[in-house]
Structure formats: structure tokens, C-alpha cells
């Protein structure tokens, strides 16, 4: 049978690539076009910090390491930048005039950094850290002992901080919020991170805005003026002040937008045969059951798989993704899961040892774990996801944990023994039966 179906995937990040692979797994003959907005082969933004470290080269950032991967899957990968979507005629218009027709389209266009309205933010020597092109610019300037100002100490900012520190830059981090990673961890954890950075010789300035960046005639090339009146010399300024979804080209297309592209449970947008996945869309947050922007790699992959299945005709609802992050800050490893801030009426268990930079906080609703934060603890942390994702009733183990949070692993085993946890979207997998 001739299959004339043409799937077009716009965006070649983890969401787009996963969707292309998923569609191919279920439809061997359809035409599949994957369009990336950047010239490189599909790559992973989250590998960029390791390129900056020097622990990998650009090839090491590629999402798939086999250069023949897309050919082998008969996926036509091309470079192109969408400027307009015409859902009536089922066409995507690319920069340069080409129009690509589709039968089914996935919008997996990701997000872009926000440029805050700071005078001088467009000067040479001021860069985002979002693309491989950005990374190449940063590498030219981020030498050992170079004075560098990092604007923003959120999750991504803190990851970039680590990379710049590893390069030996002299770092000043400016954060508008009262603490680091304010949207990932509470005062205790964020405070520990801040103290740790200071102990490592990184200057962390919180509650402070960058007012202006200017050029200087002195040794360093730039000067960064802060709202606390300090003037910081810098050879390089890296902006990490937040991101916004790449939805501008959808204005007027009829694809409904909220914070990001609006999707239903099957990751369909409001335009027929147009789906969305990853950083650009508002997927369901497992913790709240409500749409939200969960701009993280594992969620982009989950969306990509589910959208790919639905596009290939296998109806697969998205039940929600869990928000979670892990961060390595100069050797201090922290993570947060789900409702790390807890819930009104819920209970918490916590363990704090500031002098040893150790923190564990567990948030419960009734006897279910709904969120957690860890600092200085890495062993078996995935169990936290397991407990939150499955919503096991923990019964007496909740009380034991409130008494001794360090019993977390034993609690997990006792509660989850032999129980099932559904795979990312696939068959169930189960914890070993231990009785």
C-alpha cells in the first residue's frame, strides 16, 4: 500500500527528535521531515555546559551519536526557520520563501532566552548561553581568570555558573530574587547553595538588578552597573534571565497561545492536525493536573514520545509530567521534585545540617509524597520520583519518615515492593518482588 502521509516536525531538539523516532517506529513508510532552526545536526542544549567545561566536543552534544541515524530512519533532516504557519492550507512558510506542506505537523520549536531591557545588553561581549553558536562566542572570551558577570541564578543560570567556574573564570553572579534557584528550592536549600558558592570564591549578589552594561577604556572590556551601585568589570557578560516559548511566528495562525502553545491531553493544538511538544507548549503538570510550562529535558522527551504516538494514530493521553531538576554546583549536588514548596494543609519531614551542606525535605499530602528537595545527597534520589509519580500511600512509613527522613530508601522499598510504575509511555515495569 502506498503511504502518502507527510509528517513535518518543526524543531530538532529532544522533543522533535524523539517524536520523529516514535512516528517512524509506528509508521515505517510515511514521509518524515524534521526541520531544525539551527545549522548543526540535532543537539542537546543541556550538553552545552559540558562543552564549555571542555569535557566533550561539539559532536558530544549531539542528541544521537551516530551520524547516519536520521538517514537510517529515513528521516529527512533539514535546516529551515519557520516564519509563518498557515493551517488552512496546511503549510509552513520558511525563511527564504520555501513553503512546506504537511498532513500532520508537530511544533517542537522550544524556547529562547529573554533579553531583559538593560541598556548595553546588545554590546559585543554580552551573550546568552542557549545555542551552540552562543557557546562558541562564550568560549572565545571565558578564559582562565577572566572576569565574568553572570546575570541570573535560576536553574539554567546555576548550570552555566558551574561551567564558567570549571573554566576558571572569576565569577560574579547577579540575581534579582533573594536567593539562588528561587523557583526550584526553598530558602534553606537556596541559602546553602549561595553559601557554598561564596566559599568557593564566587561572588553571589542577590536581591540586585543589572542596571546598565557599558564599555570601558580600562583593562576589562565591559563594566556592569548594579542596582546596589556597584560597578563590576567584566570581559564577558552571560545572560541567563529566563526564557520564553518560540511562538511569535504563530501569531494570527489560529493556534491558541497562553503562556505557551495550548494543547489538549493528546498534545493537539487548536489547529487541526497540528500538535505541540516540549519547551514551547503548556503540558499538564503531574503535580497540579494543570497546564504549565515545564521547560526541562525529560519532559520534552515525554511530550515528544506521546505526541509522536498520537500523530501516528495511537491514541495516547498525556497524564502529566513531573517537574524535577538536578544541579551540580562546584561539587554540591542538589535536586528538587514535584511540589517542592509543599501544599497548604500538608505535612513535611526535614533534615538539615548546614555545616555539612546537607538537606532533605519531604512534602506530604495525606500520606502521599508530593514533593522533595535534596542538597548534598545523591544516592538513590530517583526513588523520590518513583514515590511522587506513583502516589503510593505510605501509611505508617510517612510517620517514620517524619521522625527519621534518612529512612527514605527503606521507606521506598517497603512501600513500592513489587508494585508497578508505568514506563515513560510504554509497558509497565515493576520494582523487584522482595517477599
Amino acid at each position: 500500500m502506498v503511504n502518502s502521509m507527510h509528517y513535518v516536525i518543526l524543531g530538532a531538539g529532544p522533543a522533535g527528535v524523539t517524536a520523529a523516532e516514535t512516528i517512524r517506529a509506528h509508521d515505517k513508510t510515511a514521509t518524515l521531515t524534521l526541520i531544525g532552526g539551527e545549522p548543526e545536526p540535532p543537539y542537546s542544549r543541556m550538553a552545552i555546559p559540558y562543552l564549555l567545561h571542555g569535557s566533550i566536543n561539539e559532536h558530544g552534544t549531539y542528541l544521537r551519536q551516530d551520524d547516519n541515524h536520521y538517514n537510517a530512519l529515513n528521516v529527512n533532516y533539514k535546516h529551515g526557520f519557520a516564519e509563518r504557519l498557515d493551517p488552512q492550507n496546511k503549510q509552513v512558510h520558511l525563511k527564504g520563501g520555501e513553503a512546506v506542506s504537511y498532513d500532520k505537523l508537530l511544533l517542537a520549536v522550544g524556547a529562547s532566552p529573554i533579553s531583559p531591557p538593560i541598556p548595553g545588553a546588545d554590546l559585543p561581549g554580552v551573550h546568552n548561553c542557549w545555542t551552540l553558536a552562543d557557546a562558541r562566542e562564550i568560549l572565545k572570551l571565558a578564559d582562565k581568570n577572566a572576569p565574568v558577570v553572570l546575570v541570573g541564578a535560576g536553574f539554567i543560570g546555576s548550570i552555566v555558573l558551574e561551567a564558567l567556574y570549571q573554566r576558571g573564570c572569576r565569577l560574579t553572579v547577579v540575581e534579582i530574587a533573594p536567593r539562588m534557584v528561587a523557583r526550584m528550592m526553598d530558602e534553606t536549600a537556596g541559602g546553602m547553595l549561595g553559601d557554598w558558592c561564596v566559599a568557593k570564591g564566587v561572588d553571589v549578589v542577590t536581591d540586585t538588578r543589572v542596571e546598565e552594561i557599558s564599555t570601558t577604556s580600562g583593562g576589562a572590556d565591559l563594566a556592569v552597573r548594579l542596582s546596589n551601585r556597584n560597578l563590576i568589570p567584566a570581559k564577558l557578560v552571560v545572560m541567563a534571565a529566563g526564557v520564553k516559548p518560540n511562538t511569535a511566528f504563530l501569531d494570527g495562525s489560529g493556534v491558541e497561545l497562553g503562556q505557551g502553545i495550548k494543547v489538549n491531553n493528546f498534545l493537539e493544538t487548536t489547529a487541526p492536525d497540528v500538535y505541540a511538544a516540549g519547551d514551547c507548549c503548556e503540558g499538564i503538570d503531574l503535580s497540579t493536573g494543570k497546564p504549565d510550562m515545564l521547560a526541562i529535558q525529560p519532559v520534552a522527551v515525554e511530550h515528544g514520545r506521546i505526541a509522536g504516538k498520537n500523530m501516528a494514530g495511537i491514541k495516547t493521553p498525556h497524564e502529566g509530567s513531573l517537574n524535577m531538576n538536578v544541579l551540580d554546583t562546584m561539587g554540591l549536588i542538589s535536586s528538587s521534585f514535584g511540589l517542592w514548596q509543599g501544599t497548604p494543609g500538608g505535612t513535611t519531614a526535614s533534615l538539615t545540617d548546614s555545616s555539612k551542606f546537607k538537606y532533605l525535605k519531604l512534602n506530604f499530602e495525606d500520606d502521599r509524597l508530593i514533593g522533595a528537595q535534596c542538597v548534598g545527597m545523591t544516592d538513590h534520589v530517583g526513588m523520590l520520583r518513583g514515590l511522587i509519580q506513583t502516589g503510593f500511600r505510605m501509611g505508617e512509613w510517612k510517620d517514620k519518615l517524619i521522625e527519621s527522613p534518612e529512612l527514605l530508601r527503606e521507606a521506598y522499598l517497603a512501600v513500592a515492593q513489587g508494585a508497578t510504575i508505568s514506563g515513560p509511555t510504554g509497558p509497565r515495569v515493576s520494582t523487584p518482588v522482595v517477599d
Partner: protein
Amino acid sequence: MQKALVIDPGKCTGCKQCEMACSYEKDNEFNVAKSRIRVFEFHEDGKFVPYTCTQCAEAWCQQACPVNAITTDAASGVKLVHDNLCVGCKVCTIACPFGTVNYNSTTGKVIKCDLCFGEPACEAACPTDAITYQDIDQTGFDKMKMWAKQSADGAEPSGPNPPVAH
């Protein structure tokens, strides 16, 4: 023929030979903290539970990896971490809902059980047969799956994302 570690905690005496053997096999040192298999103790009822990766068919760690550093060995089904590709981002350690992928701060990479390429050191070291290595179709593996299915049908987890029936 795919084989699996079958663990019978009832036989475990908590001697930790498996942890020692694992860390020696993998890191050339006796350091239980680096073992891929861990024995958890339940002090109150004097129980010991050896615990390690079950090599999920569709593995969460593998799907979360940003650089495809975790692959499936076609013959054994084992999920392998390739150190040359792993960047040490730790996303797999939070993605694995079983908590069986761990970060090794010495190497800056993650470690997980790879069944020692077909000759698991833990199994060889276990003096009580609490850990055995058996053909999947002849072992409790199917039973384990059945049991798991029953338990899921009987007591569906009550979270907002209950397992999707397949």
C-alpha cells in the same frame, strides 16, 4: 536467551558479600558505597533486601539522557552507560523512579548494574543463593510480572498519573 537477577530477600543474611564483590569487580576496590547492588536493612524486623536495576524494557534513564549515553545491549537487554559519552549531568539519576542509577563523584559519571556482561559478580559472591541469575522465561520473572500486574489491578496507585494500561 535473556537472563535476569532473581533476588530472594528471605535468604539474605545481610553479609554484604554482593556489595563487596560488585565494587571490586567494577572499581577494583572494596567499597560498598560504590556498589551497584545495595543491601537495605530493616532493623525493626531484622530483614535485608538486596536491590539493584531491573533493566527495564523501556527505560526512563535511557530516555532522559540528553546525549544518548545509555544504550540497550541487543543480546542481553542490559541498559549500558557509555562513559565516553556520559557528560555526568545526572538527569538519569532523578529520572529513574527506582533510584538505581547513581552518581559516582570520583569519575564524574553515573553507575548502574550491567549484569557484569553475563557473569554477575554479586551472584557468584552470594553464599546463600539470595541472588541467582536465571533464564528469564524459567524464573520467577514472569511470575514477578504477573504478581506485579495483580498488585496493580488490586491496589492501583492513587496518584494523578496511574499506570497507563497497555
